[in-house]
């Protein structure tokens, strides 16, 4: 049983791909909030600029996944030894960021849709909407922090 088998990079690259599944959450968030904005835009087009905040937040969630993917991919180098330990770390980092991105995007979409529709009738909902969206956003941030902490462990000394 070798510590650095040749199939170890498979797990590393799987981590890279798993991190981009936060884009699925961001897509759901964008589309669900977009439905609400399309509804609001029929009646008060001047509110559209402020109502696009959920869409921008969904974009940020996708950026979290992108940054983790680039971070993990930067640690993969065929010229160096790559242990199975590092492969599993990268897979865990990618999965944690991807799943929390899914959750955060889902939350942003549903909250964005309902709050944007409510903002049409009551302008004081705006502050509440931004607060709730921030809390939904940091769910994705937690996964990113876990991914960052995990990724620092790949420099642990593992002798092949």
């Amino acid at each position, binding site marked *: 049983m070798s510590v650095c088998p040749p199939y170890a990079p498979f797990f590393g690259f799987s981590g890279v791909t798993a991190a981009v599944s936060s884009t699925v959450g961001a897509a759901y968030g964008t589309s669900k909030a977009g439905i609400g904005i399309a509804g609001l835009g029929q009646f008060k087009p*001047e*509110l*559209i*600029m*402020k109502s*696009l*905040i959920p869409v*921008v*937040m969904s*974009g*940020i969630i996708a*950026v*979290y996944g*992108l*940054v*983790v993917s*680039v*971070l993990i991919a*930067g*640690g993969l180098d065929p010229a160096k030894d790559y242990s199975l330990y590092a492969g599993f770390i990268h897979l865990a980092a990618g999965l944690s960021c991807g799943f929390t991105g899914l959750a955060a995007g889902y939350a942003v979409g549903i909250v964005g849709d309902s709050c944007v529709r409510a903002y049409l009738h009551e302008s004081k909902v705006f502050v509440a909407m*931004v607060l709730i969206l921030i809390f939904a956003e940091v769910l994705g*941030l937690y996964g*990113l922090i876990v991914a*960052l902490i995990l*990724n*620092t462990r790949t420099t642990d000394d593992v002798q092949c």
Partner: protein
Amino acid sequence: MSDPRIQVAKLQEQSAAGGVLATLLAFAVALAVVPIGSYFISLWYLFDGNATYAAITAIVAANIVLVSYVVISMWEDSSSDKTSQVGKQFETKKSR
């Protein structure tokens, strides 16, 4: 077409349509370019290859773009409120 309310509304609509699209395009480009650009620039020139600090820089940059969008959208909303208040002034003068 000398009714000042109609003039104000037309000006508002024109400035709103052009201005909103330009702002949105600028933010879309910024959201795409700023995080990944700041990641690589800080990785190569600031942090000497320490990828964790570069990732933190990229996340902070992305959140700065988000906060600036929120601030700009609220500022634009309040400035368009002021033009509608000017329109209301015309309204009260006319009703005298």
